[in-house]
């Protein structure tokens, strides 16, 4: 169990280092865009200083994390009860959906996505997944495309 747990200290150290890097990047981008003068600030003026502030704040989180005790109270059940296998496929499916959305068209890509989502996390019966997916796609198509006039892609098959 101890291996699965992720201490708040480690999390803060990791996240502060990440934000420090982002802050440095933002500052550099601001500097690159031209700081201007105080009486006429340039495009990068605020970006530069916000980046500097980000670095300072990350540093304070980093230092505070280093000072934090590694005792039992500093440990939080970070991944306890978490089913990683459930949300990673969902994210991957969403990216696939975005990639296929224009090519396959709204209805087809939505039906495929929903069937996957109905089956992937808590598997439903095929009939429930297919009927649910088709119905949801048709209802949303009717509401958003036909009623609210929101343009949705028809795809290579020209469906919808």
């Amino acid at each position: 169990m101890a291996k699965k747990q992720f201490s708040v200290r480690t999390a803060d150290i990791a996240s502060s280092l990440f934000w420090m890097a982002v802050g440095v990047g933002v500052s550099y981008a601001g500097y690159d865009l031209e700081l201007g003068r105080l009486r006429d600030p340039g495009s990068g003026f605020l970006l530069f200083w916000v980046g500097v502030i980000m670095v300072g704040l990350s540093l304070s989180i980093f230092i505070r994390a280093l000072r934090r005790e590694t005792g039992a109270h500093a440990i939080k059940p970070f991944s306890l009860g978490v089913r990683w296998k459930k949300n990673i496929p969902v994210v991957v499916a969403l990216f696939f959906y975005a990639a296929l959305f224009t090519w396959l068209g709204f209805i087809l890509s939505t039906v495929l996505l929903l069937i996957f989502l109905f089956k992937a996390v808590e598997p439903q019966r095929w009939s429930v997944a297919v009927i649910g997916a088709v119905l949801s796609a048709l209802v949303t198509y009717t509401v958003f495309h036909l009623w609210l006039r929101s343009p949705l892609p028809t795809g290579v098959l020209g469906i919808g």
Partner: protein
Amino acid sequence: MDLLNQLAVGFSVALQPVNLLYCFIGVLIGTLVGVLPGIGPVGAMSLLLPATFNITPEAAIIMLAGIYYGAMYGGSTTSILVNIPGEAATVVTCLDGYQMACQGRAGPALGMAAFGSFIAGTLSIVGLMLLAPPLSAFALQFGPAEYFSLMVLGLTILIYLAHGSMPKALLMAAFGIVLGLVGLDSINARARLTFGRLELVDGVGLVPIVMGLFGVSEVLLNIEQELRREIVNTTFRGLLPTARDWLESKWALVRGTLVGFFLGVLPGGGAVISSFLSYALEKRLSKHPERFGHGAIEGVAAPEAANNAATGGAFIPLMTLGIPPNVVMALLLGAFIIHGVQPGPLLMTQNPGLFWGVIASMYIGNVMLLILNLPLIGIWVQVLRVPYKILFPLILLLCLIGVYSVSHTVFDIHVMIVFGIVGYLMKKFEYEGAPLVLAFVLGPMLENNLRKSLILSQGDFSFFFLRPLSAASLILAFVLLVSPLLPWTRKKREALALEETS
């Protein structure tokens, strides 16, 4: 007299059949998203924003505002019946509401939540109506220095009230400003942080960020844990609270309304914090504090009054200054701008129909909610029985369509998914999303006013301290920022955060 004339103008707008219809749709959807855990008013408003493109600004704002205050009504239903808050602002209602339901008093609990919401919601609109005109007139004297300092103060209050680490909240606000600055510089049209992508020239969209941070991330968090919902089996006869219930709750309602309204004006999730504060206040003032947590009706009345009163209060800074105090108001600001209307001190004079129409619609919406909620509680319970495994694919689908409908680009879908992951990780690493979104919206305005002030003052920073309001705002912001360094104020803030999270 003038006020009554203006209100009459508002009612003439709000009572138009089309506006009544959109008000009804707004409060109905608001109640529904309030009932359903996992999708809140922010998600629902983002989703329906594109649906308002073809309607009048009045109808659009009336509907979106209806979703906001409707969600506060609906959120209490899940808190009382399932012990799962539909909204963050109704978390505290679980404590006594669910206990009342377990004791067979779900009806009076739901009834008090609905009546308390109605009374507080209506009183807060009276407050909005009375305070907005003088504040708008006062705000006409503001220059860029005042706006800059007020925005700094607004962000600082939000950060101060954020539960958890203040440096983390500040960091998120800074990141939000950076995101807000992506795109063309409004002064010299120079592209910033676009990485050569044409889609980023106009900046990052608010809707994909909000949908990702609050919609997709919430789904990702929910599906990795098993949500158990045990709906209390009870018949909903006798929804009307008894005379004794009213007697016990009357001061809780008054105090909840006042706390909610004034905290609602402040930036930083007024509805959430005010519900916790009003609950704590009632418990502290009660002669029998031991009843709290075991089914005390004041424990339902006070937070429900507070979270509804806060919605009225939140409109004040947006409608009079053009500064949104929370994420929902930031979205509403987006809706105003999409419809070519700039909220601020001139809104009341340039668009009296819109300004007073929205206020009048809120009176009507509150009546609709009362009529709608009590008889429909049975239906909301049925909605709650829909398992999350069926619900979450539909929530994701609505997020996807909502984002695509705004910009018609797949790029924004990618942005939403990325911010869904970012939001998920932020919650895991205990970073808050609200400062990020508010700073994202305020970022361009903040920069614009800062640069204008520096140009006007020839680069002299003392300019910000020579103007009284600007100086007072900056000094207060500074005090709030350094106060966690002082042991006494740090303890106070940590106690507040603890009450909120526990």
